[in-house]
């Protein structure tokens, strides 16, 4: 993978930067430094980054075409809402909320595991279709469960998703996925994309690679869903349909497949565009896919397709002569 800037920063600089971001988020939240609208957008941005980078693991690094990511979001949203509204109601949100999010992630991860099993024998278009079926099954399944409100939706979810929490989860997701990608598992996943037969001949356990990709991807999809539920405080099956999945797909292919910086970029551009084009009403959803089509014609891999910003790349990846400090 090619570099964008040549010099990665030292670990100290990176940590200081992250601490500054978190501190800023705390300050904003505590002292109400931005108005509610901006705060809402920032939280949405964080959630979108998590959605985008997690889907990118399967669609970008592994090269498949999953259209079911909204389904993992739904699982995370509903399970976390059950935890915070029905099962652990009244508990201290300081530990209850992260637990709810983790439960949402695990629920999504378990289903992701099943999807990963299905991907052993099925690739390409047929796997895409299976993910579509999965999405529809989750959506219509939820519609038939009155315990979570069925088609009318789940009301009364607490407003737990704060700016600091979102920032923390976003940073955690980016860090964890970046670590995975630059490990032997990330290389295995990419090898599966490049040439599965050659990969197995080189000792890569491709089945494990696929499982890891799906489980991690779906886990963080669920995390995003949990944050989403506790931001909007109301969720219904309609929030997690093919339109939602398509939005996440747009972010991934816009920003760039197989790139962490690309995921952040795609999520940011998408979130901003969605707000900027708001006055256009439904015409907004004509402009955006049109831009996507144009993008595919001229830059099929996305803005940062398969390229990475050096700040996201571990220092050990650089040749000795490239390291600065």
């Amino acid at each position, binding site marked *: *993978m*090619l570099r964008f800037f040549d010099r990665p920063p030292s670990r100290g600089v990176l940590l200081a930067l992250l601490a500054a971001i978190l501190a800023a988020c705390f300050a904003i939240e505590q002292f109400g430094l931005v108005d509610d609208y901006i705060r809402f957008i920032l939280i949405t941005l964080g959630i979108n980054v998590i959605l985008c980078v997690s889907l990118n693991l399967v669609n970008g690094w592994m090269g498949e075409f999953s259209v079911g990511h909204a389904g993992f979001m739904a699982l995370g949203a509903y399970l976390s809402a059950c935890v915070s509204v029905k099962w652990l109601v009244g508990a201290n949100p300081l530990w209850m909320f992260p637990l709810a999010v983790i439960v949402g992630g695990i629920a999504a991860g378990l289903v992701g595991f099943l999807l990963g099993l299905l991907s052993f024998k099925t690739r390409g278009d047929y796997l895409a279709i299976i993910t579509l079926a999965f999405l529809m099954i989750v959506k219509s399944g939820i519609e038939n469960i009155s315990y979570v409100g069925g088609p009318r939706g789940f009301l009364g979810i607490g407003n737990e998703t704060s700016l600091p929490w979102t920032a923390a989860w976003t940073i955690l997701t980016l860090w*964890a*996925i970046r*670590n*995975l990608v*630059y*490990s*032997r*598992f*990330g*290389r*295995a996943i*990419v*090898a599966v994309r*490049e*040439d599965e*037969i*050659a*990969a*197995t*001949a*080189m*000792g*890569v*356990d*491709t089945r494990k690679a696929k499982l*890891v990709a799906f489980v*991690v991807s779906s886990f963080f999809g669920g995390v995003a869903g949990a944050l989403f539920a506790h931001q909007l405080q109301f969720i219904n099956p309609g929030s997690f349909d093919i339109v939602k999945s398509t939005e996440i797909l747009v972010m991934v292919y816009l920003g760039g497949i197989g790139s962490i910086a690309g995921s952040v970029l795609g999520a940011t551009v998408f979130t901003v565009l969605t707000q900027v084009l708001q006055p256009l009403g439904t015409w907004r959803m004509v402009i955006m896919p049109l831009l996507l089509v144009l993008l595919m014609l001229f830059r099929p891999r996305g803005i940062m397709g*398969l390229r990475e910003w050096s700040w996201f790349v571990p220092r*050990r990846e650089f*040749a000795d002569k490239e390291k600065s400090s």
Partner: protein
Amino acid sequence: MSTQPLLQTRGVTQRFGGLTAVSDFSLEVAEGHAHGIIGPNGAGKTTAFNLITGIYKPTEGDILFRGKPITGLRPDEIARRGIGRTFQNIRLFRDLSVLDNVRIAYDSRSRYSWPGAMVQLPSARREEKQTIGACEELLEQFGLAEVARERAGGLPYGSQRRLEIARAMALKPSLLLLDEPAAGMNSAETLKLVEFLGWLRDHFSVTMLLIEHHMQLVMTFCDRITVLDFGATIAEGGPEDIRANTKVIEAYLGEETDEG
């Protein structure tokens, strides 16, 4: 010195529907040898490789490596046991770097878990550093250290072939399967290849099984040769025996006619 052959196939037959690609393929490769497989195109040579490396499961017969059966194992399991291979049409991970190509093969010996990777456990970081070091050293030995971080697909053809072999060697295999390593080479290049293969065999103590069409290479380098035609083994022996074998000559050149 063990007398058990490193690799043994017994009565291996592969049928695809009505077509028998390989029939009753019985082969023994002694440790330390270079064993060649030759035959006209379509004789089933690459199929034999695919059977040995587990990409196909034989319809009949079994395959033993170091005396233990490997029939029906997955290709990655077989690779981890110490059988490496290259492909007829180079199958590098073209969009990845040279270093990544080698690392992917070397990774099979790493032990750290994926949660460990995600939270950067010290053991994971240590194994990663070790992998980079070992692979850079391997590339150095193959003369590819300069291009370690370049895109594999951008290398010249000869370097790509060398990289594919380096990648297979990263598995630290005891048996290396080479599928037409001299493809596309002229006589001068082929001579260099023979030197290179000799170096491989001595430096890494690896047993080799080669598919080749270049008779020069096969005759000078291989200790034993098996000849396939239409999936069946028509001859086996040392280079001298094969060179004089009438069945082999017929298979390649056709039968002698009265005018001949």
